[in-house]
């Protein structure tokens, strides 16, 4: 048994979308499925829970860097071309056409070891040109606020307001993981790219003829 497992889980086949009834039941568990806070009952539907935008963003800024060369970036180097901003409730972040910003879910999410998820854009926003996520899979056992990669593909600036419902988290039954995976850190806001830490870079470098 893992720490995040409750005792009220009905047995379901892997890959099955969880019904509203099951989701509501499991959200009541102490250390089971957590998508918090649920501000309105209507957020929870059959198979998915609506997710909203948080207050923290990471935006790109102009810097002296000529390119992003991931293997050569150190931890602080990433902050040379990205900066954090907090947008208080009631304010807005204006995302201009073809601009990109990292946001996060307002909801804190913790998936037990037998549930995985997918992040989907809300179609109404999608039709206005807003894309909210590219890395859409959420692993069983994951904890934190999800980073959203927000991009305005349209021609008109879009106002991003904290707490607006921009997407949904589709939840499915998964094969049980043997134990709760350890985290590097538990994100509560958008996280800077960690591509510079990818061990593969060294192997790629080693293949260089020089």
């Amino acid at each position: 048994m893992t720490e995040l497992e409750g005792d009220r889980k009905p047995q379901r086949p892997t890959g099955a979308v969880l019904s509203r009834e099951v989701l509501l039941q499991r959200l009541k568990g102490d250390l089971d499925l957590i998508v918090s806070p649920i501000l309105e009952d209507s957020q929870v539907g059959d198979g998915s829970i609506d997710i909203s935008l948080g207050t923290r963003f990471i935006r790109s800024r102009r810097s002296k860097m000529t390119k992003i060369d991931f293997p050569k970036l150190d931890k602080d180097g990433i902050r040379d071309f990205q900066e954090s901003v907090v947008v208080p409730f009631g304010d807005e972040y204006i995302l201009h056409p073809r601009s990109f910003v990292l946001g996060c879910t307002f909801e804190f999410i913790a998936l037990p070891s037998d549930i995985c998820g997918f992040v989907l854009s809300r179609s109404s926003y999608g039709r206005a040109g807003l894309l909210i996520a590219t890395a859409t899979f959420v692993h069983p056992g994951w904890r934190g606020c999800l980073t959203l990669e927000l991009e305005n593909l349209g021609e008109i600036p879009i106002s991003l307001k904290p707490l607006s419902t921009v997407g949904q988290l589709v939840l499915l039954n998964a094969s049980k993981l043997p134990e709760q995976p350890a985290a590097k850190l538990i994100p509560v806001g958008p996280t800077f790219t960690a591509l510079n830490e990818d061990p593969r870079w060294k192997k790629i470098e080693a293949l260089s003829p020089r």
Partner: protein
Amino acid sequence: MQSIDQKTYLSVVDQKLYAIRKLTKDLQRALPSQVSAQFIRALVLITSAVETFLLFRVNYLRATLGADPAELEVQIAFNARVALRILGTIHQQYLPLLHAGSRHNEYLVYPSIDRAVKLFTSEVELTLIPDFEYNYAFVGIETFALREIDKLEKHSDQATQAALAGVKKDAAAIKRWITFLHFPMADRDSALSLCILAHELAHLVDKHMGLYQELIPKELDKDSFERLVAARRSSPVQTGPGGPQLTLETLFTKAWVENQCYLACTQMLENWVREIIADILAVHAIGPACYFAFNDFFAYMGSENRSSRTHPPAAFRLLGMLDELKDMGYMISSEMVDIALTAGLQRVTSDATHLKYAEEAEVVQKTIQTNQTDLLAKIRKVTSKYSFGASRYQDSVPTVLNRLKAGIAPIEFYDEKSDVMRPASVRAILNAGWELYKTDLTSFYANFKAGGEELERLDNLNQLLFKAVEASEVKRQWR
């Protein structure tokens, strides 16, 4: 003849008005909407009052002193200087607060602080100010726009007063308290350290309710005061090399020395009593988190355990907080928090017994000691409704703590009785954070991959606490 002519004065006032208005607008743009809105409104009204004042005064003076150009010159210059003094205050005292406010990003905790203050008064606007000085402070300006306009009115004729009446009416509609909570920039990302703000907010509650006026002991401790006066009278006076050996009693009467000692002691007594009131109010408001935060704050400050004119020594204050926690039902169980508090009490009691109070500090300490029971009884009357006693702690903190230990931001909980999800209380969140930090950080660190930096994980704990405070507040206020 004046060295600076009236034309120069009037032109300088115009330039300063222009510059201040421009600065205010620029600073306002850097702030999120509604932050410091009342403060900015007050600044706009004061500048408008200054402009109206000078316009009407100059017209009046030209009409009445037209036949005496020299006197006209003097009077216009004088009135311009009155206006410039007020503009100077805006520039030097008020705009820096607005500028510092625009640098902060503590919007995560602001709604909770605002709600806590509004339990006592809705007539308040709060702004959080990060400082590079490592200090927490409360600055509360009461009806400040009206007071600045009053200064102008004192120098006004009837027509000017009538012209200022409109601005004054608008100024009266501004919230009574414009307050600024200063906190160290270094603590910006520490939800645990920001618990000190409860003490600063308690200063506002004290000021608003006028508690200290009622609670300050009316008489100083007689014996120690007489010793102080005797010591002062026989203290030597510096007379320079080769000068006569003089003491205060050879130069001043006993009554004069007594009076000076009395003034110094009563001022110090007021300062100390106000700190004690704020400490006790804060302990009742947020429970053990207040003691733990101050314990670390004093350590971070590297402060000597000495008394100052403004604050009692650290051990005196920590002991006061711990004694109050004991009275609130803590330190009688074998719970982790009680064990930590009991250990703290032993250390502080031992340290406090070695404290030496000299001169005015001795008089003040003894006066407070004599009146302590009465003082605490009166403060407890105010706190009884919201006190975060041991039973409330045990009802709310353990569930929050379990979530934190599992690396989960404790935002809301399922309430079986009412079948709804309820937001966690801010007090439970902060106390769970401190209990985890002080007693069981290892279990929290077990959530992370091996080899990471411990301080990064501690920072992560603070982020989880900020998230829980922010999101639980939204849940509470969601309509």
